[in-house]
């Protein structure tokens, strides 16, 4: 047990970074996802096409490749950003593609009559999307969004590969010093499980609170 207690501060720091990466990436992914989903259902063809290209491009290249590309490629073209910031932005954009697909399925699940009633009242398309469609769409996709949140948490471990000392990287460092992989990585694994358990609980609560009476 000493391997863990002796390195509590390293584990703590790593855990904090993991939580920070997850929360910031998720917030970004939600914004990107809603914007891209809105583009994909918009009446403007160029926006629809752009939204589709975004989703296809982001989803069809591994996250690790995007991370490496951003961390090593961006400085080449003169964009200087910290490792943490770069990782947050990349993970947010990547998970944003999945979020967009989930949100879009939610939009498609809203009865067409809702949008027609909104437009018949004189709301513009963006207004009816924002005030009528999206609030209902998001409520129906709480569960899939919760899964994306858990996937985001797991994917923050890839930031270790580009030098962010989050939980997995912290565990790795402790292991290099102590060579007790089972204790160390089981501890890290339990921490991830606890975090995803918390996300699951939050999702369940939100889903009950937001359910729409039909």
């Amino acid at each position, binding site marked *: 047990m000493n391997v863990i207690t002796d390195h509590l501060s390293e584990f703590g720091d790593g855990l904090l970074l993991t939580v920070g990466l997850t929360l910031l990436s998720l917030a970004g992914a939600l914004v990107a996802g809603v914007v891209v989903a809105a583009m994909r259902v918009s009446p403007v063809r160029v926006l629809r096409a752009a939204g589709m290209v975004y989703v296809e491009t982001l989803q069809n290249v591994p996250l690790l490749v995007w991370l490496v590309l951003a961390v090593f490629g961006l400085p080449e073209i003169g964009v200087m950003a910290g490792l943490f910031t770069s990782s947050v932005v990349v993970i947010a954009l990547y998970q944003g593609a999945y979020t967009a697909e989930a949100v879009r399925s939610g939009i498609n699940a809203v009865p067409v009559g809702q949008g027609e*009633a909104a437009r018949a*009242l004189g709301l513009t398309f963006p207004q009816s999307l924002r005030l009528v469609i999206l609030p209902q769409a998001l409520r129906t996709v709480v569960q899939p969004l919760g899964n994306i949140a858990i996937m985001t948490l797991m994917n923050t471990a890839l930031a270790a590969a580009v030098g962010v000392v989050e939980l997995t990287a912290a565990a790795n460092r402790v292991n290099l010093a102590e060579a007790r992989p089972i204790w160390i990585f089981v501890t890290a694994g339990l921490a991830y499980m606890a975090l995803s358990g918390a996300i699951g609980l939050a999702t369940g609560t939100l889903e009950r609170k937001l359910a729409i009476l039909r």
Partner: protein
Amino acid sequence: MGDRMIEVRGLHKRFGDHVALRDVDLDVARGEVVVVIGPSGSGKSTLCRCLNRLETPDAGEVRIDGAPLPAEGRALARLRADVGMVFQSFNLFQHRTVLDNLTLAPVRVRGLSRAEAEERARELLDRVGIGEQAGKLPAQLSGGQQQRAAIARALAMRPKALLFDEPTSALDPEMVGEVLDVMTGLARDGMTMVVVTHEMGFARQVADRVVFMADGEVVETGAPAAFFDSPASDRARDFLAKVLSH
């Protein structure tokens, strides 16, 4: 200005190979109540939806109070705000209370303050007899109450005309009357209305004019008494024989 609230000229609409509207002309005068009847698939809903461009016609023109309906964008939204629509399936916003259903568009489209919009909304809910239900969600109301709320929502925009597409067809029989009563009241108050319905009693008593459609065309139009008692066309006669025998 003039006394024509709605003018339809040469309206065509096709869905793929199927022609839903064929060269339809229609005038609705200010304050007039026009009831549109006809067999299923004759294009009644399509006509109604073309009047506020929920359906885009392939040819022809629609004018509301003298102004041609713009093709899209903000200008279209502004004109739609002046033409209320009541749907068969109510289409109340499920995630908002009845009161919020009534205030949303007046605040967002007309720029009313929240307080003004709420005052107007409460008056209208009282007028359609569901003032007590203001704080409930649509799903907590009966069908008849939901449809009355939907009518109040349309009225909250102070529209120049109201379109109804089979407003009572989704209701249990005992709730049809309460909705027709509200509509009759509106007609008496001088609202310009286009009503697609199978309620022949309403057509006879409330309509100023009946428009009979078949196969995407306006086949016959006339005052209700004349139309129901002595239809001029065979198709109208056949149709009336079928619906009135029940």
